[in-house]
């Protein structure tokens, strides 16, 4: 139950950060964006430095994971700039910056696929759509409002109350840093070898590759991975020993001769492979639901975007009559 950061520093910096956010929110007359941004950045920086100094004291020697503090600071600073910038286009661009910094955090957490997906989907697809809509839905500037944003962009709504309630939430959320939380017990971890054993063809490919490269311990092109035999005589599972990292290899095609081969040392579970396995095996129903949601969103946006044709009743009646007379003439 050890505190990660001193509570006095934490709460003082939360109050300071609230002040900074409050000042940097757009307001009607005076513009305090720059000093507010500086105060907010100072507060965030002090908290991050306090966290870092704790990590240095425990880890001993050197500033560990400099990139975490760098990316974290960039993410939060551009997030603050995003919610305070009066121009929506700049807000969207700062949000892209936040996303890229978040990708850095994901890379530190060794979530490689997530970082790539975030760049492609968020920065690539969603934010471009936002930029399109911002440019579609902006009033063309008139004579009297050249170089000036509309009033709803320039004046924040209820800045004091919103900042107080938001930072009260933050103070409650970050109490864990000051109070310390008992270390959670890590449950049985996902074993990479167990997941890898579900991909026998990958193991086979790696073993064959060894033979091609002329290394020891591979399998020949004539050999295949051995399967166990079911009770009814059909071939069953591949015989893979996860604990010793070995597989059974069938030397003769029809005969019973087998030998045990160790997996290549460098055979590792890829991140995409692991996430994909967890996605397909663990959450097949959720994938279906996500597909339905995407379909609903597609149908919904088509319905929203279609043109409403205003056909008046007379035209409709005339058209119906002409259709009916044509029908009568042809029959």
């Amino acid at each position: 139950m050890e505190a990660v950061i001193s509570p006095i520093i934490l709460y003082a910096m939360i109050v300071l950060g609230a002040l900074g956010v409050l000042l940097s929110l757009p307001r009607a007359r005076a513009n305090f964006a720059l000093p507010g941004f500086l105060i907010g950045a100072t507060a965030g920086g002090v908290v991050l430095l306090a966290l870092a100094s704790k990590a240095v004291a425990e880890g001993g020697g050197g500033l560990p994971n400099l990139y975490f503090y760098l990316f974290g600071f960039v993410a939060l600073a551009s997030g603050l700039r995003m919610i305070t910038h009066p121009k929506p286009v700049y807000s969207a661009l700062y949000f892209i910056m936040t996303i890229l910094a978040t990708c850095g955090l994901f890379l530190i957490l060794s979530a490689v696929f997530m970082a790539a997906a975030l760049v492609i989907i968020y920065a690539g697809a969603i934010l471009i759509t936002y930029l399109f809509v911002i440019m579609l839905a902006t009033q063309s500037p008139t004579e009297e409002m050249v170089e000036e944003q509309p009033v709803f962009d320039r004046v924040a709504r209820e800045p004091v109350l919103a900042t107080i309630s938001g930072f009260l939430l933050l103070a409650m959320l970050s109490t864990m840093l000051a109070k310390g939380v008992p270390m959670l017990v890590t449950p049985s971890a996902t074993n990479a070898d167990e997941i890898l054993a579900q991909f026998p063809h990958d193991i086979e490919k790696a073993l064959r590759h060894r033979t091609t490269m002329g290394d020891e311990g591979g399998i020949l092109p004539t050999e295949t991975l051995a399967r166990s035999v079911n009770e009814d005589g059909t071939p069953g599972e591949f015989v893979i020993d996860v604990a010793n990292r070995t597989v059974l290899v069938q030397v003769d095609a029809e005969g019973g001769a087998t030998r045990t081969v160790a997996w290549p040392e460098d055979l590792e579970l890829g991140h995409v492979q692991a996430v994909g396995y967890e996605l397909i095996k663990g959450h097949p129903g959720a994938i279906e639901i996500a597909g339905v949601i995407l379909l609903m969103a597609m149908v919904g946006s088509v319905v929203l975007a279609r043109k409403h044709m205003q056909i008046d009743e007379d035209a409709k009646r005339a058209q119906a009559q002409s259709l009916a007379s044509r029908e009568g003439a042809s029959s």
Partner: protein
Amino acid sequence: MMTTLAQSGFPEAMTTLTLYHYLFISAVMFTLGLIGFITRRNLIVMFLCTEMMFQASGIALVAFSRFYLEYTGQVFVIFVLTIAAAEAALALALVVLLFKRNETLDGSVWSLLKG
């Protein structure tokens, strides 16, 4: 049986960082998104702020995934991305529709939706 980091498929990364570092970043980002959603009056920026709250939850999920050496948290982030994409498509279609009707992006104009 203790599983080492290399066996679990997660390369060494979180050596001197604790889970709480990431949770703090996530909490601050969520707070900023919340404040932005309340204070900004531009409809598009309000939706951008909800996207930032999605991001914050994503950071927390991936950090927990790393902490528990489980991939489920990252799978959840995939679903969060899916929902965010669907939400962006629908919300932006609505925003364009509302803008066509009233020629303004001010959210408070629509605070009295009647008939």
